[in-house]
């Protein structure tokens, strides 16, 4: 019987990959190095000819350290299956193999056929392995994406934001991007995904810390929804409105002038007491345009984070060919988790990434006219403070 034989083989292989390192106390890095030697030889097709084949990072977009960490996260889930995934030559895929396939699929955005050919497996195996990885990651890696809870963490975030351009007590930067899809336009049910730039897209809204780490995301809404509506439908909005988030310590700018915690976002978002947007319109006063400059520089981290996300995990960068719209948000989430893991593990690959802020090319700036009175006062206060006009 195939599966039984396969499982035996799998267990042997697993033993080889994990058993040695764990039992002898050798680090798993060494194990992965052995695995990589073998795996790199198995790669065929154009990928094997590429210049950076010897370079692990060029294939998977992560360092070996991060790769091993990811393997350790999903190991149990990937190996829990009794009938293992097989390569075309009948070998069972180890955890490393599976993680490699999934990371390659997510990072390169290449077709299933291409990846299958490169790694010597059926395209359906590539799809299954990737999906299993996504499922495992969203469960095991979700702790890498959370709103900061400890006082130390919050202080650090605020001080880092203040160091960018002086905005005090800022907790995050919010931005929205579109994940484009190619859907058949003859089907009227797809109209809901048709956005204002005439693309089919899914929205990803992210709140980012100064290290470009995603701290809160909302995704899955169709592209035809505007930024403001996505925000209003989010759990973050509800928590903030209830006073359960961004309710930390206020800071005193001058006597009788306090500033609460807030996040910054562009003009597509409403101006709220906890969400500061730039001044709109032309002919702004010097202090207001100065505020806008500082504001722009501060919220740039969100744009950069989204640009890097798409740059690094190319599966969500281009136009996806008829994706499953229920799976796509989960893939996006896992890409965000991987993005955060790279930051959390201080992976050096991020230093080699170009710092772009273009994540939504072709999309015009949305404008939201909603202004809250309190927020208006707060923004003026910040503007005066930043231009040094606030009385001490």
């Amino acid at each position, binding site marked *: 019987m195939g599966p039984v034989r396969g499982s035996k083989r799998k267990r042997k292989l697993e033993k080889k990959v994990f058993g040695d390192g764990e039992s002898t106390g050798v680090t798993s890095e060494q194990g992965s190095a052995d695995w990589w030697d073998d795996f790199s030889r198995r790669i065929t097709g154009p990928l094997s000819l590429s210049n950076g084949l010897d370079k692990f990072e060029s294939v998977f977009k992560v360092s070996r350290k991060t790769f091993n960490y990811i393997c350790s996260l999903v190991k149990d889930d990937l190996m829990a299956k009794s009938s293992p995934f097989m390569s075309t030559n009948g070998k069972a895929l180890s955890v490393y193999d599976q993680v490699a396939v999934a990371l390659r699929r997510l990072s390169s955005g290449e077709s299933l056929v291409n990846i299958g050919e490169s790694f010597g497996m059926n395209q359906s195996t590539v799809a299954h392995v990737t999906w299993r990885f996504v499922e495992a990651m969203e469960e095991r890696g979700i702790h890498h994406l959370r709103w900061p809870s400890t006082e130390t963490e919050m202080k650090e975030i605020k001080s880092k934001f203040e160091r960018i351009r002086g905005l005090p007590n800022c907790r995050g930067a919010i931005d929205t991007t579109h994940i484009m899809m190619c859907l058949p336009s003859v089907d009227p049910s797809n109209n809901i995904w048709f956005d204002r730039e005439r693309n089919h897209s899914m929205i990803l809204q992210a709140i980012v810390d100064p290290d470009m780490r995603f701290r809160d*995301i909302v995704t899955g809404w169709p592209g035809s929804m505007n930024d403001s509506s996505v925000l209003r439908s989010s*759990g973050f909005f*509800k928590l903030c409105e209830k006073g359960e988030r961004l309710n930390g310590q206020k800071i005193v700018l001058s006597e009788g002038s306090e500033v609460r915690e807030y996040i910054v976002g562009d003009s597509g978002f409403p101006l709220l007491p906890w969400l500061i947007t730039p001044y709109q319109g032309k002919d702004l006063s010097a202090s207001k345009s100065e505020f806008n400059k500082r504001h722009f520089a501060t919220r740039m981290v969100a744009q950069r984070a989204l640009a890097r996300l798409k740059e690094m995990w190319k599966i969500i960068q281009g136009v996806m060919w008829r994706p499953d719209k229920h799976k796509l948000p989960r893939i996006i989430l896992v890409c965000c988790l991987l993005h955060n893991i790279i930051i959390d593990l201080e992976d050096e690959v991020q230093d080699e990434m170009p710092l772009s802020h273009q994540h939504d090319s072709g999309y015009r700036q949305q404008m939201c006219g909603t202004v809250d009175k309190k927020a208006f006062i707060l923004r003026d206060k910040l503007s005066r403070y930043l231009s040094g006009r606030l009385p001490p």
Partner: protein
Amino acid sequence: MLCSISTNNKSGSTWLDRLRTSKGFPVQTDVDLDHFLNPNPNLPNSPPQQQEEQEEDIPSACNPVNIEKSPKSLPEMTTKKSDDWFEIMSSVLSELFNMGDASDIARIHALEQGRKRSFRKQSNPKICLLSSSGSVGESCLVVAGGVPALSPSSADNSIAEAKRSDDRLVPGKQGVADSAGPEEEISQAVAVDLDLSAFSRAEVTIIDTSAPVWKSEKLIFRKGSVWKIRDKKQSHTSRRKRKVDQLDGRPAAPGGEEKQQKRSPLPSKAGKEAACDERLISSNGGSTHNGKGKASKEAPDNLSQILERRPQFSRSPRKPATKDSSVFLIQCIPTTRKNDTSSSKNRLKDKP
């Protein structure tokens, strides 16, 4: 309009008098006849005697409740010929399409089916008159738009209709209250436009890391800038997950249940729309909570609806409805599961 003309020509003074009396109009004056008819242009156009005749036939022929209660009448009818065949078929049809309510889809489906059934009935004046045997208001509804009756005599259908309008009204009101800023437009429009069929509809999976359940399925209804969002019920995930595991041949791991609970559930497709809760984009978190409560409350109804439906389809027209009903109940469970499994299987096959 058709009705008003024919009414003028056909109906005698007796009918008119009775109608007027029932409506509190003076019997003698006929000056304001048109004025009287205009607000209710779709009055029944059948002669009263015929109506009386057919009202006698109503219980045996057309009232599905009665048929279910007295299945003995069916074998008797089979002894007659084509006329009786029609009655059997109509009773079967009325059983088939009198299936309670739950989801919008199911209701729409039922209405569509009801329309078909009514069309068949229309060829037989007896049954047609049944529908106009109720109050004036009801019969207006029946003939409205020149469509041959929406079978309002079916108690279930009319209840479903009333319930639906309730469903729509409540969130509309909420929306107006909750609306702020740009959502004002959205909520107002929702309050005015109650017909969901005009909305384009999409099922989406939303990931929101700040929500209590960070992965949820929602139904979106959109018409222009008007958005309506409904939460979908989330109780079937663990079952689906287990099924997927079974497909893979993976044995239930120890602590697997725990794991599944930890995982925020992603509901399977089947029968989920029934228990969805409607809310607006601008509504607060409280509504989500309410929605869940409502969803869980509706779950048994949903199940029973599925259970009821299967036996009726699988039963031959000649068999009485009450026979072996429990067997059907057992049989239909794997059927639905099978569908469910295959759908999840298909989804698995999709490329990620």
